[in-house]
Every structure is written in structure tokens, then in C-alpha cells.
């Protein structure tokens, strides 16, 4: 590939790689070879660059990500795209626990299955999981969308605030204060947009096959009588 800088982690250090990614200007293109489960690969990107990682990565890959696009051809361990702010992080394989944890924006796509607590404390990130999501996914989720094309394990959306969850398959159980909600046209639109955005990594799916889940808003308000007022104030 022309114009692509290649870092072979069998020889180069991860610090060299991440330093180069941090120094890169918009339009930079990078390829990472032999990650072999290394931690913190492609962390802290802030520029509009493209990074392709050929192989499986360890913890915290593409953490604190902004603007650029990271594609991992393989699996990712704990904390994939943790605290992502914007941009896109995709993996073709499975992610272990806490994928996209605390993410504030951007898009995270997991081609395979996501492990436990996917989207824990998500604050605006959009997540699309091609397979199943592990237990306690979207735990304390505050904003954003979690799309699960397969099944969701136990305690989905426990203590959820205002994030939306879309699941195509079975939900083993819903966590505290998480309930099924009506799929209104705007939700179908959102879902269709996210599935389209994930299409390069996740097989297409019909939004009509999904069900929506969200907060019953019984848990996080001190006074239950305030629910309607808060909802009006938030324009929901």
C-alpha cells in the first residue's frame, strides 16, 4: 500500500507506534503487524487518520479515541475503545469485557461477540455488536445507542439512564429499571443508520427484527413525581 506507514510490533515498540499516531496529521494511514495481544495499541489518537491492525490486540485498544478510524482484523481484550470521544473503532472478531466503556461519542463496531459489561457507563457512544453481548451490558448506560444483532445475556441495561438498547435476538433477563419500550419511527431511523454505518463489519439486518429497551426511570430520580418534568425538560 502506498502512503501507508507500517509498524511491525514484532520489532517496533508500542510506544513508537503510538507516538507516530499521536504526531500524525489528518489523512495519515497506518498498518500494524504482529500485535500478538499487546495492550494499549493505537491509544489516544486525536487526528483524522486510518489505522489497520492485522491481528488480535490486548487491553485498552484504541482507548480515548478521537476522530480517526481504527480497524482491528482480529479480537480485542478488555476495554476496547474505552472512553472513545468520536471517530470509529471496528473489530472483525470478538471483544472481551467492557468494550466501549464510558464512551462519550463515536462508533464502536464489534463484528463477533462482545463479553461482559459491553457499553458500561456509556455516555453517548454508539455501539453495534454483530453477535451476542455479555452479561450486564449497558450497565448504568447514560446516553448513546447499543445495538445487539444476536442475543443479550443476563441483566441487560441494569440501572440504565437514558441510553437506548436494540436487540434482535433473545434477552436472557433485563437488569433493574430496564424495560422494553415501543419502537417508534425515530428509533427505526436511528437503528437503520447505525446498521448502515456498521455494514462493512456486521452483516445487514432488518430494523424491524429488533426490540428496543431503555430506562423505566424509576430508579435514578430521587422523586418519582419528577419523571415527567425531567423528560419534558430533556425534550423526550
Amino acid at each position, binding site marked *: 500500500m502506498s502512503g501507508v506507514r507500517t509498524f511491525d510490533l514484532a520489532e517496533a515498540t508500542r510506544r513508537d507506534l503510538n507516538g507516530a499516531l499521536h504526531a500524525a496529521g489528518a489523512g495519515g494511514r497506518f498498518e500494524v503487524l504482529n500485535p*500478538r*495481544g*499487546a*495492550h494499549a495499541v493505537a491509544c489516544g489518537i486525536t487526528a483524522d487518520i486510518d489505522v489497520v491492525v492485522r*491481528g*488480535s*490486540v*490486548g*487491553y485498552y485498544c484504541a482507548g480515548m479515541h478521537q476522530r480517526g478510524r481504527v480497524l482491528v482484523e482480529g*479480537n480485542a*481484550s*478488555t476495554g476496547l475503545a474505552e472512553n472513545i470521544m468520536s471517530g470509529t473503532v471496528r473489530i472483525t*472478531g*470478538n471483544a*472481551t*469485557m467492557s468494550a466501549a466503556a464510558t464512551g462519550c461519542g463515536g462508533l464502536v463496531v464489534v463484528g463477533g*461477540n462482545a*463479553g*461482559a459489561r459491553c457499553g458500561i457507563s456509556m455516555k453517548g457512544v454508539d455501539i453495534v455488536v454483530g453477535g451476542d453481548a*455479555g*452479561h450486564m451490558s449497558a450497565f448504568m448506560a447514560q446516553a448513546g445507542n447499543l445495538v445487539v444483532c444476536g442475543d443479550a*445475556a443476563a441483566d441487560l441495561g441494569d440501572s440504565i439512564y437514558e441510553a437506548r438498547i436494540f436487540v434482535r435476538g433473545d434477552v436472557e433477563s433485563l437488569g433493574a429499571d430496564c424495560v422494553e419500550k415501543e419502537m417508534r419511527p425515530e428509533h427505526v431511523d436511528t437503528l437503520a443508520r447505525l446498521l448502515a454505518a456498521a455494514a462493512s463489519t456486521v452483516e445487514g439486518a432488518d430494523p424491524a427484527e429488533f426490540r428496543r429497551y431503555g430506562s423505566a426511570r424509576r430508579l435514578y430520580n430521587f422523586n418519582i413525581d419528577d419523571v415527567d418534568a425531567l423528560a419534558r425538560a430533556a425534550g423526550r
Partner: protein
Amino acid sequence: MCGIVGLFCKTETHRHELGRLTAVMLREMRDRGPDSAGFASYDPGEPGRTRITVLAEGVEVDWAAVAGALEGVLDAAVTVRAVHDHAVLSTDGDGRVARQWIIDNVADVTVLSYGAQIELYKAVGDPDLVAERYDLASRRGTHALAHTRMATESAVTTRGSHPFATGADTCLVHNGSLSNHNRLRRHLEGHGESFQTENDSEVAAGYLSWRIRSGDSISQALQGALSDLDGFYTFAIGVADGFAILRDPIACKPAVVAETDDWVAMSSEYRAIARLPGAVDAEVWEPEPARIYTWSLAA
């Protein structure tokens, strides 16, 4: 934080290099537990013959005299092979009786394991040096467990290092901490288990030994563990004919599993698996909370 690894050879293909591959995995987990390390490996051994691995750290033991006295107790021949501060006793006699006799009669030693297939070594210090000193790389066999320890619940000592094995060919490595181990230890002592440390993980090993000695399969024993053990755990477990993995219902202690036609490997981190032959094409997943995974040599 601790690092655990387990490797189970489903076929003959890698059994000649079981130790070498386990050492490669252990090295990758060095950062997770630089205090101390240990490993257990299983090989077929000789039919009917039990090996007892004993630690004699910082003490001189007259092994010939111990073997002689033990022969009288077991009414069977006992041979001894010294490996640095460890010794492997071998006998046709009853391994459980031998273990208890050594605990009761040989001062300042710790019985690390007994069984027809298991040998177990552990020491304080850099995991790489521990592997080298006890020649992990040369070990052949069917499965192995190893552990790098960052001590939280008890002191950095060899005796507090993993793996733990209290019953025949039953061994575990643990990442986590148990909160009901004191009461459970007393309960198990009442059922004939004996312990040599104050360590929480030794109690988990004793629990499985008790259940298996009482007739449970490894799956039944682990089903019981889910209700009787309180705390955080990711376990890798070895038994005579198999290998198992269990995580607690919250599952916050990391674990990743990879499987090919030839092997199953589990570790705290994928990088320990990444260097195994065929890892690139292995099926890789995160074991689910409170789900029992077992692999059997018989299968």
C-alpha cells in the same frame, strides 16, 4: 492482580512440548505477578504409581531417612528425586496417607501435590527464573497450569504461591480473592481435608478435592463451588483426566480462552495465548460468568 495460564493438549501433537509452551505463556504473564510463580504439569507417569511433590524451602531434609520411614508407614517402596528445594517421592503406596504422614511428621516442609500424574513446583521470585530452575520447559504431558502472583490476601511466600493441590491429581490456580475461606476451611477440616497455609485459594483447592473424593465429577464439584465459594475468582483447574475453567457470577477477573483441534488454552490475557502454535486460527472467546467449562482426555 495475578496471572494465570492453563494449557490442555487434546491430541498428541503438542504433548512433547507441553512444558515449553507453558513456559512461553507464563513469561507473558510475568507483569501481572512478579512476586512468585508456580506450575503444575500432568503426565501419564507409571500405572499405579503415585508421586508426591514436597517443598523443603530453607531447610535440609534427609530424604533417604524420610523415604525409609514412609516405607514403613505405607508398606511399600518409596524412591526420592530431589529437584533443588523440592523433592518428588514416588511409591506404589497410598498417596493420601503419604501426604498426611509427611505433613504430620516432617518438620518445615510443605506437601505441594500428590497423584499418579501431577508434579507441582513453586518459588518466590521472577516467574522466568522459577520456570528455569525447575526446568518447566522440558516437561512433557497432557496438561499444565501456571500462575504468577501479586499477593493481596497473604504474604509473599513460596507456600502462599499457586498452584494449590490438596487432593489426588486435583489442582487449581486462582485470580481473585475469597471472602468465606476461613469458615469453609473449618468445615472442610471437619470432613477430613487438611491445609498447610492460611491462603484462601488453598481452601478452594481443598473444596474441590473434598467434592471429588466424595464422588463428584469435576462438573458437579464446580456446580457446588458456585454456591459454596463467596468471592471473586477466575479458576483454571486440573484433574487426572481433564481441565476446567470457572469464573464467579460477576466475572470481573479477566479470562480468555482459545481452542484449536489440538489444544485448549486459557489465560488472564490474550498475549499469553498469542504465541502458541496455531493461535492465529484458534477460536477465541471470553468464558461466561458462572458457567462451567470442562475438557476431558476421555472425550
